[in-house]
């Protein structure tokens, strides 16, 4: 009998979290292996080329493109100030010479005799990469960045919007089944990672934006609310670059759904502690899920050790989450793994398993419709 495997989301009280903090282009690494870093510390910095300003010299001086190089007052590599003359036409018999001023400051990057176009490059722009989590630098990738490791609490969400942010955890919903509404958001939550319970309402998001909340974490969200928040209907799950003023992570899915008790309890137990949150989600090749990371300290109690199932393997007793209607969001233990396919209510035949739900029911679901709750 082949083992059944199914992907799941990680919810771990203790894991070795490893972040590769890389610059988009070659630059300078500011830390060394062994350094202790805080989440907001800059670990690498580079400067990318500044903005480009093309100047149509030929057309502005009314000369053929091929004449442009000979009319330039500056050469590639020269620095120019805004308003500085950069080209001058010959005029007729020395009269009616026309000068062209640089429309922006920068460096002359190229002068084209084919197009008569000159490219000015603005001042370099700094790009910094922060540590993102409190931890220790374990490896330096020269010119690229560093690897930061942390003994951490790690919770993967199912879907998120918005990029990386950091802030202390504030518990807004004390129970995992409590809906996170505007009334839960207080003015002093500015810069915090706010822990909800079940669904986040659009009003809560609006209130959080107004209060300057760093991130909202909850069980679910309504698609209609997400559309209102983003201003468009999300077609494919590739997110992380939204500019909505905060980061949102949902741990279970879309709709009225409570956060898994374990996830909520774990994050709640770290209230007040600084969490690193990233909403970036990419459900395609190279899958990326949103995450919440809290660096542990020596004072934190060790999590209870339990028997760990083989990663990804499905066995009797394995805790699973049902991820499709009519049982969407329910959690239970695998009770049976029949090898023969069964006919579903839809009329399709599929391999199934039986799950003993927390409320005592025993339901049969397609194997494709569950995910492991990984520890």
């Amino acid at each position, binding site marked *: 009998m082949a083992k059944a495997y199914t992907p799941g989301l990680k919810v771990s009280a203790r894991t070795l979290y490893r972040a590769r903090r890389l610059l988009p282009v070659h630059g300078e690494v500011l830390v060394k292996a062994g350094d202790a870093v805080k989440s907001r510390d800059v670990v690498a910095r580079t400067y990318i080329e500044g903005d480009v300003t*093309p100047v149509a010299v030929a057309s502005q001086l009314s000369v053929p493109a091929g004449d442009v190089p000979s009319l330039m007052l500056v050469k590639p590599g020269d620095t120019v100030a805004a308003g500085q003359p950069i080209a001058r036409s010959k005029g007729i018999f020395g009269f009616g010479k026309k000068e062209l001023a640089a429309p922006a400051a920068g460096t002359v990057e190229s002068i084209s005799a084919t197009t008569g176009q000159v490219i000015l490059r603005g001042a370099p722009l700094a790009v910094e990469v922060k540590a993102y989590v409190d931890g220790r630098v374990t490896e330096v990738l020269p010119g690229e960045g560093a690897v930061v490791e942390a003994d951490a609490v790690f919770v993967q969400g199912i879907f998120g919007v918005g990029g990386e942010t950091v802030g202390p955890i504030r518990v807004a919903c004390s129970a995992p089944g409590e809906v996170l509404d505007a009334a839960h958001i207080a003015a002093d939550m500015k810069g915090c990672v706010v822990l909800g319970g079940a669904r986040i309402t659009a009003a809560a998001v609006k209130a959080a934006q107004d209060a300057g909340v760093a991130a909202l974490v909850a069980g679910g969200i309504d698609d209609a609310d997400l559309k209102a928040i983003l201003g468009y209907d999300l077609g494919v799950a590739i997110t992380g670059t939204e500019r909505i003023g905060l980061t949102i992570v949902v741990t279970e899915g879309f709709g009225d759904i409570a956060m898994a008790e374990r996830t909520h309890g774990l994050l709640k137990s770290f209230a007040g502690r600084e969490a690193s949150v990233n909403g970036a989600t990419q*459900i395609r090749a190279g899958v990326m899920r949103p995450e919440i990371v809290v660096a542990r300290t020596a004072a934190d109690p060790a999590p209870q050790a339990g028997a760990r199932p083989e990663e990804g393997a499905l066995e009797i007793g394995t805790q699973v989450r049902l991820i499709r209607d009519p049982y969407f969001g329910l959690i239970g233990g695998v009770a049976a793994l029949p090898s023969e396919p069964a006919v579903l209510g839809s009329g399709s035949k599929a391999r199934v398993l039986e799950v003993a739900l927390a409320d005592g029911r025993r339901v049969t679901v397609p194997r494709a419709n569950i995910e492991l709750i990984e520890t």
Partner: protein
Amino acid sequence: MSAPVPSSKPAIDIAKLRYILATDCGSTTTKAILVERVGDSWRQTQRAEAPTTVEEPFANVTIGVSNALTEIGELAGRRFIADDGTIIRRRGDADPDGCDLYISTSSAGGGLQMVVAGVVAQMTAASAKRAALGAGAIVMDTIASNDKRKPHERIQRIRELRPDMVLISGGTDGGNVQQVVQIAEQIAPAKPRPRFGGEYELPVIYAGNKDAAPQVRAIFGDPKYGGFDLAVVDNLRPTLEQENLGPARDKIHDVFLEHVMAHAPGYDRLIAWSDAPIMPTPGAVGDILQRIAARDGLNAVCVDIGGATTDVFSVFGGTFNRTVSANLGMSYSISNVCAEAGMDNVLRWVHIDMDERELRNRVKNKMIRPTTIPQSAEALVFEQAVAREALRLAYVQHKEFATTLKGVQQQRTVGDLFAQQASGQTIVDDMRLDLLVASGGVLSHAPRMEQTAAMLVDSFEPRGFTQLAKDSIFMMPHLGVLASVHAPAAMEVFERDCLVRLGWSVAAAGEGKWGRKCFTYRVSGAVSASGELACGDVALVRVGPEQEVEVVVEPAKEFDLGAGPGKPVARRVKGGTVGILFDARGRPLMLPESAADRRAAVARWAKIWETR
């Protein structure tokens, strides 16, 4: 025929083959089949599938392959996967384990996002966009010298985008060099970064004025810019009157396979396992369709609807066209189907009460957990409604593409170019369509054949007499790649085990008031039936796959069944597992405007499909 990924493998001795394993690694599911030599025949004997394992914690596509092959081994009573997870090779006739050949197709890797550029928005940039769309890309932006943006705005926009590749066109061969070089001069310094992988050089395809190619090469090869992988192909607009999209489209497909899809984790290992070059799934399906159409002299359309993409293939008058609608699919892209089609259009196919808010959440839940399957009858109705819209939109895109590409070159006059709406006749003519083949999960795995036929008819709206078929267990991709190694075996399996003839759609083209006479039909021979259909009616006559009948239809004067308005048509046809559907709903398909009437009509049509 599509070009497979180059690979150096030892020659295959066809005579010694007995056990052939083939997989198709889709973006959601990895499907495996076993093809065996049984006596003198080749038969597909087993199939199995497993979730595609590109997600963590596996992040290796070959784990899904191993899982599917392990399962197929259990069903066949033969081990195909060794303890170390690799494929077992048969060492001789007496060996109880292993296979002789392993081949695969793959479409894992998701969609393709491109930036296209040209000199004039309505001309070369439009051609570049058609080439990209036709190759299945999402066009993130179209850059043109006359796109009403200032050069620095254009450059800023390019900097913000994270495309998988860039296609540059511009200028006719021998024409103006300056403008297309200017476009290149704006793109190179903008240095757009690829969506995936920091070390990956951004592919740039140049398909413009050939005289400008050396300068374009110099710009993208300039060390101060760096980070580009430039490919130069034939100009997609060699003259103003001529559009030549083929080379650019083929190059986009190659680059997609070599760069974008190769980011599916474990792909390098899959290449090493395979005895023949891995083919992209749509390429393999297209190849097998062309072989059938050529052999039987047919006009054929095949659709393959997957999780992320929907591919439509057509062969009309021997001319092949293929489109990949990158963001029309049933899992990763299901939300995009609903957004593009609009929820109202999806729900017009649903005849039971459903809460829209709840449905929107279900769609998103399917998007974020793409491998789930419908468990309840209600969930299936909704999923098949979404499929109808995905298929409809993909077919519209295909027709738009085929209007501009007749084989390799599309002849147009300059006048046509400025009156784009009126230009070009589509070569995809629904009245001349002989065979419509359904492939891909939601069509191939529909619990009942009638559901597959209904989805095909509702979304493709075939006209006149059209034979409907389905790929029994979604093995056209496997047979396409098998044909590249052993064509006779592939064609034999195709006939015996792959193609399931569902029957015929006999549909009247034209519009009329509901309740007015549309056409009469008479079936004689192995099965007898006759009737008159009013506009809005459908009738299903059960004629089995081995039963041959004479069908005579006589349309009212405003309707056409293939011979012209009001003219009768007689055809001798063999039936299928579903039978012959006489469709008087009109073409284009007419649905009642009021929601209640529409729901009643859809419920009535659904009941017809259940007629015994």
